[in-house]
């Protein structure tokens, strides 16, 4: 079975969009599903955390975050010089690729589970930690440190933003309640997770299809960037994970995190903080190309990278 079945829902949504079907996922369903997914991922991570001493993670977490900062810092000059993009656009795209996609992470988790392969549960903590530093870096890159950035507003947007709030909230609830306390909620948050993910991917397929038109404005450079960037970042992630002693599954998940581009938290934050950046460019590449690329090809690729780095046979 080459594909994880939930990916087929993405393809169905994309087909519906391209066929100009009258299928429309109500915006409210999108919002409800994203609340569900963020909370569920947080809860899962929290339950995992409650099983381990948190202190042990601190070093690993610091390394994971520090290395990840290289992604937007490397992407920015590439986008500026090779791509000839305006400062704001380059900074905004760098922020999107430096941050992470919660749904790509969830699909990678499902893909591993489908192969009966396990991964360290605390990867969810890294997901939370990786979401926001790139957004701050992106704003700094756009402003060059000088102009009047509404920092209070931006930091509030990031930290009180829906994504971080629900992920961290879920993490804390899962950690406080532990596996036993959460059990009565398992039927909702864990058993239905994959079904909800399937619905969300159906919706993202529809949205991605409607963004394809905007890619014409993006040009060949950005199309290439949208594939090369995740591969490079994924390789960095597989290496980092391996050096930090993660399992193959864990390194593949970290690679997926590095490779993924945010399209929930980043667009919201960049729209407020760097409004002069054209959102069609960043969302078009992140959602229109990188997201399906990671779903269809990236995840297996990062996994086999991790496997090779750790010398594990297929």
């Amino acid at each position, binding site marked *: 079975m080459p594909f994880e079945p939930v990916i087929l829902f993405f393809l169905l949504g994309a087909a519906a969009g391209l066929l100009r079907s009258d299928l429309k996922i109500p*915006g409210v369903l999108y919002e409800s599903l994203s609340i569900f997914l963020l909370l569920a991922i947080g809860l899962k991570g929290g339950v995992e955390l409650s099983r381990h001493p948190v202190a042990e993670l601190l070093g690993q977490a610091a390394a994971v975050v520090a290395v990840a900062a290289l992604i937007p810092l490397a992407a920015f000059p590439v986008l500026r010089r090779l791509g000839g993009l305006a400062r704001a656009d380059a900074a905004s795209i760098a922020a999107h690729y430096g941050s992470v996609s919660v749904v790509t992470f969830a699909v990678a988790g499902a893909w591993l589970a489908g192969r009966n392969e396990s991964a360290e549960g605390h990867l969810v903590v890294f997901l939370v930690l990786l979401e926001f530093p790139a957004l701050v870096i992106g704003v700094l890159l756009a402003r060059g440190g000088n102009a009047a950035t509404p920092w209070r507003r931006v930091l509030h947007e990031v930290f009180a933003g829906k994504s971080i709030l629900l992920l961290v909230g879920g993490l804390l609830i899962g950690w406080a309640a532990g596996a036993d306390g959460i059990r009565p909620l398992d039927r909702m948050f864990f058993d239905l997770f994959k079904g909800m993910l399937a619905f969300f991917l159906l*919706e993202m397929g*529809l*949205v991605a299809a*409607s963004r394809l038109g905007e890619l014409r404005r993006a040009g060949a450079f950005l199309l290439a960037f949208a594939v090369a960037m995740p591969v490079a970042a994924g390789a960095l992630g597989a290496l980092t994970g391996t050096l930090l002693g993660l399992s193959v599954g864990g390194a593949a998940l970290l690679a997926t995190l590095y490779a993924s581009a945010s399209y929930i938290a980043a667009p*919201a934050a960049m729209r407020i903080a760097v*409004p002069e950046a054209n959102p069609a460019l960043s969302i078009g590449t992140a959602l229109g190309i990188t997201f399906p690329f990671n779903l269809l090809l990236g995840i297996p690729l990062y996994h086999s990278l991790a496997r090779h780095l750790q010398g594990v046979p297929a």
Partner: protein
Amino acid sequence: MSVPIARCTLLTVVCEASLEDDLVADLGTLGATGYTITDARGSGAHGVRDAAWPPGANIRVEVLCDGRTAEAIAHHLEERYYADYAMVLFTSDVGVLRPRKFAP
């Protein structure tokens, strides 16, 4: 049974939903005594915004106020948001029962 009707300005703004919080704060600062918001979708110079997901959603904001306040708000929005955001704005003349309610 005659209700005395006074004149007042209705300012309508259609813009990206992500501006809602900022806009509401601006309206208060600029002297509006209230506002009404509905969710919307649409199309214009910034392309189709079909509200299929949050970054593509619009809102439609109405403000009843006196002409001077409407002008101040329009001026501010043009300065602050027109360059970077999908936004359209129009004003019309309406009759209200209690004009005091809409003066700062």
